[in-house]
């Protein structure tokens, strides 16, 4: 979740319809761009192959003899025919057309693009985890279940919640789980509440998840600084209101100073309060949502806990609840039964315990009659859970606290350095991200989108743009704690250079990006004439 509009919305004037300007001085010319423009299908050559499969070792192997003809495929699938070196070279080349955290500073606000430690990858690929079948008997998956149980306990401690389900596959699925639990809770109390309150600054998934849970969404106005408009909230708190969902720190990167009072007011009307945990990395070890009074919150492991974003997932969106919502947790719940003797909860000692015959055992508990049910087929995005567990064990309590301290320091530093050149979306200090506005630059004909594209040329990924919606020409910058002062200085220098370019020769910004494999892409055309699959040139009718 928390992935908002980054590019131009459809329906904006076509970028491609603008006249092509000459390349600015000093910029790489057209010729220096990677020329590679093939799709794997265009590398295909009949009869080539990259697989290695054994010959059949059983007597009857003709599929036509084993299965009725009506079940067999009549027309083969036109998959590419390529050799292994074609595959390696093609995808290695494609990878180079991407900016990733490994190659570029990625100040994408609200998305928390921090460094992804390699040890996480190694641990997730241990055969005992990577090759484990989800329906292996419980006694044959104790290590995996123990890891899940401990991770859930760790996340509960970090958020001050009473229980955590690891099942949601992404933040948005965590939201759906959370809202469904709130719904089940009200229904169990004999209440049929119909609406959920969501600030206008919220991530788009909040209203979407709420609508799927069957609620009417009531949008609340935010104050200019992104804080909750308490009067507007008060007006909407009634017996029909099931929940209030908000992001903390808010989407302007600010901590909501009246949060405790807001939650108390909600609770006074029987309204449950949901925290969108997209920005949890700002407050690790500083504040716990549960201590503030939140009833539910989700975690984005792919943000706060360094699991990679993978170009758009997989993520993991565990959801934490207070005790009154525990009966409604998704099934199954990983439980722990003590061994004969009281044992340490940590794995290192566990092997020794196992030998002693007194080790605790872990199980999947399905017997939960009030559960909202399942969210995905198996038990969650386990590979992501291993990465997050590894990270938490690497950092420890002091390390996690330093994460937030440094994230906050970095964001405030960037904000301070940029303030003379860009308008701040809200007065500081901010938390782990800051929202700047290109209002001034827009008057000179340079938009947030232009600035984003220019940054790509200067060697940086772009901040989130046009989010939150309540800030004009928003540039939402989240440096994260894994960037050094030197990197931030380079980035700020680039931003300042662009501000000056906007005043002195904006053409160079309008031409950007020049160094990327393609230049500004025509979004309108893509939407108007959808071309969503490759076809051989002969039959290139669009679908």
């Amino acid at each position, binding site marked *: 979740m928390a992935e908002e509009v*980054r590019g131009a919305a459809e329906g904006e004037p076509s970028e491609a319809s603008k006249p092509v300007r000459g390349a600015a001085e000093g910029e790489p010319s057209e010729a220096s761009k990677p020329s590679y423009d093939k799709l794997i299908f265009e590398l295909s050559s009949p009869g080539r192959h990259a697989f290695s499969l054994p010959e059949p070792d059983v007597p009857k192997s003709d599929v036509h003899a084993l299965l009725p003809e009506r079940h067999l495929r009549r027309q083969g699938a036109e998959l590419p025919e390529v050799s292994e070196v074609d595959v390696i070279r093609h995808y290695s080349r494609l990878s180079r057309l991407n900016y990733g955290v490994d190659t570029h500073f990625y100040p994408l606000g609200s998305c928390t693009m921090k460094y992804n430690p390699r040890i996480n990858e190694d641990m997730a690929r241990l055969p005992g985890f990577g090759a484990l079948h989800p329906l292996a008997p419980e006694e044959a998956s104790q290590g995996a279940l123990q890891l899940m149980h401990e991770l859930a306990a760790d996340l509960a401690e970090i958020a001050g919640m009473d229980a955590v389900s690891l099942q949601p596959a992404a933040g948005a699925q965590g939201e759906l789980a959370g809202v469904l639990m709130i719904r089940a809770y009200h229904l169990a109390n004999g209440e049929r509440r119909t609406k959920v309150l969501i600030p206008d600054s919220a991530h788009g998934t909040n209203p979407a998840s709420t609508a799927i849970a069957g609620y009417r969404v009531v949008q609340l106005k935010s104050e200019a600084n992104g804080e909750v408009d308490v009067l507007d909230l008060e007006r909407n708190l009634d017996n029909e209101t099931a929940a209030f969902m908000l992001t903390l720190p808010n989407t302007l990167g600010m901590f909501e100073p009246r949060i405790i009072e807001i939650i108390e007011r909600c609770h006074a009307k029987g309204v449950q309060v949901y925290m969108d945990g997209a920005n949890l990395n700002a407050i690790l070890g500083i504040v716990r949502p549960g201590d503030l009074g939140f009833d539910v919150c989700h975690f984005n492991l792919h943000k706060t806990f360094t699991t990679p974003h993978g*170009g758009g997932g997989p993520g993991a969106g565990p959801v934490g609840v207070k005790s009154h919502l525990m009966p409604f947790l998704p099934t199954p719940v990983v439980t722990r039964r003590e061994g004969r003797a009281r044992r340490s909860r940590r794995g290192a000692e566990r092997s020794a315990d196992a030998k002693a015959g007194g080790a605790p055992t872990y199980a999947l508990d399905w017997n939960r009659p009030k559960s909202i049910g399942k969210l*995905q087929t198996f038990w969650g995005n386990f590979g992501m859970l291993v990465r997050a567990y590894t990270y938490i064990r690497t950092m420890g309590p002091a390390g996690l606290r330093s994460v937030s301290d440094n994230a906050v320091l970095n964001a405030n530093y960037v904000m301070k350095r940029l303030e003379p050149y860009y308008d701040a979306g809200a007065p500081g200090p901010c938390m782990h991200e800051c929202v700047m506005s290109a209002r001034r630059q827009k008057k000179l004909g340079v938009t947030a989108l232009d600035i984003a594209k220019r940054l790509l040329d200067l060697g940086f990924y772009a901040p989130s743009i046009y989010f939150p919606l309540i800030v004009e020409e928003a540039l939402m910058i989240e440096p994260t704690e894994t960037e050094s002062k030197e990197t931030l200085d380079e980035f700020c220098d680039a931003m300042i250079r662009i501000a000056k370019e906007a005043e002195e020769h904006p053409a160079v910004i309008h031409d950007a990006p020049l160094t990327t494999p393609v230049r500004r892409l025509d979004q309108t055309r893509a939407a108007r004439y959808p071309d969503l699959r490759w076809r051989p040139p002969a039959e290139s009718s669009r679908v």
Partner: protein
Amino acid sequence: MRYLPNTPQNQRAMLDVIGARAIEDLLVKIPAKARLSRPLGLPPALAETDLIHLLRGLAAENADADSYTCFAGGGAYDHYVPSPINHLISRGEFFTAYTPYQPEASQGTLRTIYEYQTMIAELTGMDVANASIYDGGSALAEAVLMARDITGRHEVVMTAGVHPLSRRVVETYGQGLGLQLRTAPLGDGITDADGLRKAVSSKTAAIVVQSPNLFGCLEEIADAAAVAHEAGALLIASVDPVNLGVLEAPGAQGVDICVGEGQGLGVPLGFGGPNLGVLAVKKDFIRRIPGRLAGATVDLDGHRGFVLTLQAREQHIRREKATSNICTNVALCALMGTIYMSIMGKAGLVRVGELSTAKAHHAAGVLAAVPGVRLRFGAPFFKEFTLALPKPPERVARRLLKDRILAGVPLARFDRKLRDCLVVAVTERRTRAEIDAFAAALAKAVA
């Protein structure tokens, strides 16, 4: 802290620029009474060597498919994962990239999504595939919500062979929207044709059929499509795309929305996640499809390029009116699938299907010859089949663990009526010798 590059000197210099004495001063908006006044109650940080020891210890407690012979299926399969996949997805430019919102800096990811969409459309015989859903179960739930939206009807008929865990996901997604689920009864391993006809009415939004189904049997998809369409309903088919080298494409059988678990396409078992949710539709529904879509377009200079498109369906534009709340999907798993389908190509995927079928049918013969054991159903099956055992399958499976064999999936956990049933999966990775060893161990276990 090796992931935190700022030294105390850096911090001091930055604080001076900000004009703050300490980092604590930046947290002034957090009310004092809201603060945590103690360190988090977590174990202290571990050195990498200790950490590796800890995690290897946990991993070693699991009976994984590398150290055991895996005959377990039930929605997750031990198919061959070619080496290049892990190497290629480990390139930082792929796995540390974000959702391609700045297309000029994300052409690698966008091109692979476009290739993935093409391959899935080709494999399923559908017109349009999206960029992936979390897994097969959530893809099915999204398909059901889509059918409800398209038809304006609230009842869905699920055949009894739909995986119970997927069915529960559909129930979860549908509970707030008043979705009514009905079940069409099972005949001999597949849906009973008369029962299906009776379950469908003018209120039916969709029939959901899974093939091969929970029992490994091949459903009559075209017949189900005819029943659905006669009632003005859609047919949703849940398939395992790795089978589609050999099995008829859903698109050629009248399927309106095709979903499936794509884990078999080069994604490791991983204890069930992350997996690869496949979703593909007929072109009429292109603007109703949930999730992301990559499309081809041109840039300022007329060069081919790719963008995320038709975003008006999505929550960042339509918010509460979006077709779905899915945002982060499983792009890296879709990339794994794309690389897998490239490596396998036209011929390889056919071979995987042929080998799996041949070995599964051989195994069925050998295992059903064990005294007391029989094939439970007569319907045609593909790479998975159901045995009836003379002893409780859960106990038998536990016993076979001692022989380092993952015997299959006992169905008692899903349905008490099927408490004598064990579903056995045989992929192209299993050898004749392994099948024989399984039969020998099974014979001992049920004797």
